């Protein structure tokens, strides 16, 4: 593997500043790797020519001593972030040929800071899924293989194209969106770092909505440092998003290397159900030991409403989605399948344009909002959501952060769980409560299973305490010395 694509951004930047390498050479190395790993199907659209052009511009800025904070950072962008002039599909046939005339705020900020978009990554259709197998553009393959190399594994989802790309070194970092775990779960299954920030920290403007009250954009990278760097540049208030928070974004890099001595880590007992994968349990215990060694105090806590998290999520998210996806009607843009009447046009277009999982969630969402069901489902779910939030608030009276596994299992085979949606939905069991409460969570790789597959741990914190997350994630990263070599298949 080309050495360039193994370095962190700060190392690359130093090399460019030392004139040992150009941004163009870096970008070329990454686009070469994109080609080599093409069979992973991590990308829906690639733009190597445009990336090289931007690399030239970055080189010029370096030469003039005007380099921006992220100049030359090869970035993959999940295909639900609109980028002007670049096809943006959300993994759906209904937007197969949709080219936006506008750019989402977070991409605008990252590009403005100098990062270079190398392509748009594959995802579960409209971000609905935990496996990146529901995409109209086919499944993405996890770069990691089990030791027997028997079959292709899912990269997790819905941001599986982004996590796979970062793991396969076809990008240095990537953007994802997390509605119920869609950044953290694929990060864990692909052995990379991924953070879901506090709801409202990053603008949702220009991101194709799945469930508006839960959606939040966040970065992936192979190191905590690069992840912190990306978040620092993409976060911040946006007047175009009414749910965006007024908040002065700190320099997250300053949290790295800070001691956690005397800080308290909560271990929620409800996250250790009978039948929790023994290897996951082992790595959880191992991570606890690392944190104790670093001087943290570990206390057991209770989050009693966790068990209602999943059903609550699977009412609220489809309800919002059923309404958010109503705009894909074949009238103004996207796929149109003509019909004799307006109702036919809707029916034919949406039947042909949406996949099964999207249709399933639209139906669930329509049902839970319908007359006579709204109070029993949607309103009740909102009340439980408040209870989940109260759980976390109470816990954070006692602890600084909470440590849990990110997933209950390692990556499964492509094709598994397809016939059983419930089994698929259970993938989100450790991640959804974070979204319901709006708090931040970061997943860090800690080790490999006996089969050789990555396992991730999740650090959760109170609202807008991303600094603490990076602080703890960095301690874990240092202790784990997890080597992401792009999996065994590379």
């Amino acid at each position, binding site marked *: 593997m080309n050495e360039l694509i193994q370095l962190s951004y700060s190392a690359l930047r130093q090399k460019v500043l030392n004139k040992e390498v150009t941004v163009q050479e870096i970008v070329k190395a990454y686009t070469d790797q994109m080609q080599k790993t093409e069979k992973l199907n991590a990308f829906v659209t690639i733009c190597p020519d445009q990336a090289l052009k931007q690399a030239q511009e970055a080189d010029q800025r370096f030469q003039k001593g005007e380099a921006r904070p992220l100049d030359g950072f090869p970035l993959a962008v999940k295909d639900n972030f609109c980028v002007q002039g670049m096809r943006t599909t959300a993994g759906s046939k209904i937007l197969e040929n949709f080219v*936006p005339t*506008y750019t989402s705020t977070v991409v605008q900020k990252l590009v403005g800071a100098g990062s270079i978009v190398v392509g748009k990554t594959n995802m579960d259709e409209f971000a609905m899924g935990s496996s990146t197998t529901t995409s109209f553009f086919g499944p993405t393959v996890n770069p990691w293989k089990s030791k027997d190399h028997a079959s292709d594994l899912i990269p997790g989802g819905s941001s599986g194209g982004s996590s796979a790309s970062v793991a396969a070194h076809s990008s240095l970092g990537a953007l994802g969106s997390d509605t119920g775990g869609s950044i953290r779960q694929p990060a864990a299954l692909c052995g990379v770092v991924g953070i879901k920030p506090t709801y409202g920290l990053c603008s949702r403007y220009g991101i194709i909505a799945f469930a508006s*009250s839960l959606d939040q954009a966040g970065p992936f990278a192979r190191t905590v440092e690069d992840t912190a760097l990306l978040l620092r540049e993409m976060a911040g208030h946006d007047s175009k*998003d009414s749910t965006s928070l007024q908040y002065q974004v700190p320099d997250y890099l300053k949290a790295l290397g800070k001691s956690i001595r005397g800080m308290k880590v909560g271990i929620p007992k409800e996250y250790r159900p009978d039948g929790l994968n023994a290897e996951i349990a082992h790595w959880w215990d191992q991570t606890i030991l690392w944190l104790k060694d670093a001087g943290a105090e570990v206390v057991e806590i209770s989050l009693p409403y966790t068990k209602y998290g999943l059903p609550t999520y699977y009412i609220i998210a489809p309800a919002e989605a059923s309404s958010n996806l109503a*705009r894909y009607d074949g009238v103004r843009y996207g796929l149109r399948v003509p019909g004799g009447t307006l109702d036919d046009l809707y029916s034919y277009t949406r039947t042909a344009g949406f996949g099964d999982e999207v249709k399933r969630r639209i139906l669930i969402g329509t049902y839970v909002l319908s*007359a006579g069901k709204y109070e029993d489902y949607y309103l009740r779910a909102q009340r439980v959501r408040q209870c989940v939030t109260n759980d976390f608030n109470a816990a954070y009276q006692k602890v600084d952060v909470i440590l849990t596994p990110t997933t209950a299992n390692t990556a499964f085979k492509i094709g598994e769980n397809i016939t059983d949606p419930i089994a698929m939905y259970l993938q989100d069991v450790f991640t959804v409560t974070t979204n319901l409460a709006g708090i931040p969570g970061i997943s860090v790789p800690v080790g490999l299973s006996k089969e050789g597959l990555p396992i991730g741990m999740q650090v959760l914190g109170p609202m807008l305490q991303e600094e603490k997350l990076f602080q703890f994630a960095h301690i874990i990263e240092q202790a784990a010395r997890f080597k992401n070599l792009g999996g065994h298949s590379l």
Partner: protein
Amino acid sequence: MTHSFIKTATGLWEVVIGLEVHAQVKSLSKLFSGAATSFAADPNTKVSLVDAALPGMLPVVNKFCIEQAVKTGLALRGDIALHSVFDRKNYFYADLPQGYQISQFYHPIVRNGFLEIDLENGETKTIHIERIHLEQDAGKSIHDLHPDKSFIDLNRSGTALMEIVTKPDMRSAHEAMDFIKKLRLILRYLGSCDANMDEGSLRVDVNISVHRPGTPFGTRAEIKNVNSIRFIGQAIDHEINRQIALLESDQSVDQETRLFDASSGTTRSMRSKEDAQDYRYFPDPDLRPIVLTEDYIQKVQESLPELPNEKRTRFMEDYGLSRYDATVLVSDLETPLYYEKVLKNLKGWKDQIEAAKLASNWISGELFAALNEKNLSIDKSPIAPEKLAQLLNLIGEGKLSGRLAKDVFEIMIETGQEPEKIVDEKGLVQISDTGALEAIVDQVIKDNPKMVEEYKSGKDKLFGFFVGQTMKLSGGKANPQMINEILKRKL
């Protein structure tokens, strides 16, 4: 409480009417997109990415529109909610780009207002307002440009509307029509809505039912597409007759939406209750609740202009106008301004009340008639208020009789000239010279000896005849008061 029952061969019927008014907020930009609002712009030229519901677009509420709703709520004496919420009303239609309309269903910004209307018998009645909420308008579908294609214009998409919903408090077409007139006036005074029904900035849906007095309300029909106050009257009258005819022939009234057809003055069924959609309302997760403070509401309250009823009371108290005269003057936005400008320019009057009344009479009489004939609004009047005041001042100074003043007025309305100039040029000055008037009176007495004799023998009524003759002989220029004096003395 007065009752206006309808009597038919089978007995009495009571009519129950409630209104849902959509008032377009007078705002330069739309409720959630910042795009310019428009009337009669080229199709699809005032549409932002948000209005067309492109993927990833988000609504951001326009604070000005919220202020207009608060103003309107305060003017209608409603309770302003400190916490209100935008909900999504989900339904598919080609001119509804998002597939939902952002409205306020569960927690509207205003509740419990009221408005006083005038009944035909001169009494007043309070019409209660259930709620006012903010919502976005849809675009327009155009079906008549092509035999099998429809066209969509999204210019209107996203424009702010205030939906004003009354309680079913009205009992006749007159009451409904007066409610809309009063509401329209208040909206125009506030400036929160242009309230032009013909341009669609005020749209009224009428809910109507009939029942026997003393029995529960009947099943109601909702009538849409009623776009003038006259049509509201027609639609209600037609609907009353239709519903009574159904009930009297032992049929039932369906709960349905009906469409008013202006060309025939009738209503026809549009969709029945069974076709009613399930809108699946839920709070819009893209928007935060509207949170207002008591301070803010107080500030808006203080910024409210004088409203029609307050102005009417003031005109009655300060200027001694009758309720009727004051009502006429305040019944649009410009007339009271005009009136008070006239008053400001009146000079040399001893009796201010008399002057104020005279000004009122001239405006609602001569001026309105002339403007009506020319199809002009008062703010386009050829006679500026200052000039009308000058004319009235000439009457006050005794330089012009009422009759001469009308002649001068006729010239003013055509030429816009100053009254004094007209008087000078035409020699229209009133004869107030005692000697000259006495000579004329002498002549009249001399010419009508028989009448003089009859008058002196007790026929007092003939006095008017002498006044008329004197005025005629003077060419209308004689000062009427002086004629009276001289005649009384000489006869």
